[in-house]
């Protein structure tokens, strides 16, 4: 690769990145600051903090549709729709600079050491071609770059995980929940968040508005449009918004040569590059690889293993909200997570399933959410004169224990291309085939039973349980598996495609197993690891002709 200055879209750049979300931002920044010419094509646009609805009176109504995290509900031209009639879950995402970090909860969790060795330890899933210790330095670099807030010393992690910023207060909700955990002797810890507890870099200090998952109006949440793109652009990276890629192109040797895309005016253009980096996450990347089939790769680019699109993992979520007979200021952020628990994270086969779950306490916020806790009540218990009682009992007096369940990789859970549904540029939309396994159902049921016990131990007067959130979360993993064997994986241990050595994949699609924690810390650490590898090995890197 050369270290030429960034070029126009008619010229060849060193690195073309597709997707300006967290992993694309990390790679762009790392490559640009090391002198490589970088172009990033992003289907969405820039968002301004002032647009986010969290500090507006109608926030709860706006979050239902205009700022929903579900692209099928939002129906923006910058998102692609998803065919979900064959799926138990509706995946969440948003197109835009910063990608889904615009709307994530910024619950900043590392995988545990056992997650990298699941097959060896539990006899299921796969081992990763790297260990926790291999990834730990990259976790730490990303933690510092984005300003993670938290407390050192969580006993469920090896020593050395030191959040660079002090923690947020866990607040009344965290303290009430923690009291129950202490009674039961169960693990909990003040939760790490990618939300600044102090002013740092481009981030302001969190003002606890509590609406992180509809965008932070304060600019305190570490979305990657704030933490990485300004630096990448200062170092020369070109970010082209409203540019939607329809195909990754190849040269005569089958190397990635760039991409064909539609610009903001719908004009088809071509961008040539020496190396192509896919950062469109577990659904978008699989979609692009399938769209990029050509004569010598008729089943999709980089798909000689047949695994592109398969092994989709989505981390099914459930939750139990507890109602307490005391004021808990349940509207205070961050949201974010107050405390987390990994008590039931590790596999214990005596429970009747493999894998585990991560738990987190979150605030419940406004009056519409408070009323929704009584949706299953009879009319006379929910409406009429009773509505005032329900508000008095619930608003500000509840807390939510949510669970993220580990998902096993299964070939039948997959992303394919839909025959009829298209995006606003006429490109085939992804079709999601996803069924929750019996193992996952048992895992969720066991954990939600324990969550109810935790609420009762904490003094809840009532619990309201949601066995499955069909529209949570936005964890899109596993559709381009990382591994050492080209017959059973799509990319190697550095994220480079076995079939196409100048094609890197740096998003959640490469994860061989899902773990059960929020994945953005892992995705971005892995992306940084790949970017540093590309920088260090540029002299020997195969490139397009």
């Amino acid at each position: 690769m050369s270290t030429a200055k960034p070029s126009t879209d008619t010229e060849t750049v060193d690195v073309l990145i597709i997707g300006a979300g967290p992993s694309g931002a990390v790679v762009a920044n790392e490559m640009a600051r090391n002198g490589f010419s970088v172009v990033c094509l992003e289907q969405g646009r820039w968002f301004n903090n002032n647009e986010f609805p969290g500090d507006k009176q109608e926030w709860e109504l706006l979050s239902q549709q205009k700022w929903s995290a579900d692209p099928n509900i939002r129906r923006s031209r910058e998102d692609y729709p998803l065919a979900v009639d064959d799926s138990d879950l509706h995946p969440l995402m948003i197109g835009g600079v910063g990608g889904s970090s615009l709307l994530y909860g910024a619950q900043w969790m590392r995988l545990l050491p056992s997650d990298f060795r699941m097959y060896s330890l539990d006899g299921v899933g796969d081992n990763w071609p790297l260990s926790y210790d291999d990834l730990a330095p990259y976790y730490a670099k990303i933690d510092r770059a984005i300003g993670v807030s938290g407390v050192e010393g969580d006993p469920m992690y090896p020593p050395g995980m030191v959040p660079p910023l002090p923690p947020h207060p866990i607040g009344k909700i965290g303290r009430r929940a923690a009291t129950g955990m202490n009674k039961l002797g169960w693990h909990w810890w003040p939760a790490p968040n990618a939300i600044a507890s102090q002013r740092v870099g481009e981030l302001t200090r969190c003002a606890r508005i509590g609406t992180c998952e509809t965008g932070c109006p304060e600019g305190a949440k570490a979305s990657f449009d704030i933490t990485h793109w300004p630096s990448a652009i200062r170092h020369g990276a070109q970010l082209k918004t409203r540019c939607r890629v329809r195909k990754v192109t190849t040269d005569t040797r089958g190397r990635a040569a760039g991409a064909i895309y539609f610009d903001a005016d719908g004009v088809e253009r071509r961008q040539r590059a020496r190396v192509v980096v896919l950062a469109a996450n577990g659904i978008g990347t699989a979609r692009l690889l399938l769209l990029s089939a050509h004569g010598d790769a008729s089943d999709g680019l980089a798909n000689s293993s047949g695994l592109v699109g398969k092994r989709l993992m989505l981390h099914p979520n459930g939750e139990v909200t507890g109602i307490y007979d005391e004021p808990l200021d349940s509207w205070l952020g961050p949201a974010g997570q107050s405390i987390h628990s990994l008590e039931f994270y590790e596999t214990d086969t005596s429970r009747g399933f493999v894998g585990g779950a991560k738990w987190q306490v979150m605030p419940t916020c406004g009056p519409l959410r408070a009323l929704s806790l009584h949706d299953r009540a009879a009319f006379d218990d929910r409406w009429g004169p009773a509505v005032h009682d329900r508000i008095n009992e619930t608003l500000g007096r509840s807390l939510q224990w949510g669970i993220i369940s580990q998902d096993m990789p299964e070939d039948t859970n997959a992303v394919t291309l839909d025959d009829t549904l298209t995006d606003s540029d006429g490109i085939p939309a992804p079709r999601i085939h996803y069924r929750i396994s019996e193992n996952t159902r048992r895992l969720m049921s066991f954990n939600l039973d324990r969550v109810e016990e935790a609420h009762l131990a904490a003094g809840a007067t009532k619990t309201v349980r949601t066995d499955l959130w069909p529209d949570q979360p936005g964890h899109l993993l596993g559709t381009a598996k990382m591994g050492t064997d080209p017959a059973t994986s799509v990319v190697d241990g550095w994220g480079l495609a076995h079939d196409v050595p100048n094609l890197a994949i740096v998003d959640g699609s490469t994860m061989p197993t899902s773990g059960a924690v929020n994945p953005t810390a892992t995705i971005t650490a892995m992306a940084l690891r790949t970017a540093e590898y590309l920088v260090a090995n540029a002299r020997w890197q195969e490139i397009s002709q």
Partner: protein
Amino acid sequence: MSTLAQADRNVLHDVADVLIPATKTMPALRDADPGGTWLDRACLARADLVPSLARALRALAGTADLPAAVRSLHGDDRATFDVVATFVAGTYYMIPQVRELIGYPGQRRTPAAIDAAADELSDDVFQGALDYTSSYRPA
């Protein structure tokens, strides 16, 4: 379409009297939002639902026994009921006077005291976390 005709607004206020009736301490929607300012904001926020809302309100208009009709809607056509309830509750609980009465400050800037987190880390609750004896699985 993101606005409602006056006739539809009148029906919505009547439905609101059923769903969220006035009490000695809580106002009716029609009294808390006499100019319709907050209903307009709700309609802008959920403009996608306004046509469905208007249809539902017109179906309820002129009903001899509105409370019974609303109750039937809840039992027989929950999707339509939920549209109407979204606007009634969404508007009502947006109104500053109502929020003050229910003690909800809204989602607003409330920065934590600078020593709040540190104080939490030096009390008995956090000691429970420190006393936890299990650990991660080495791998």
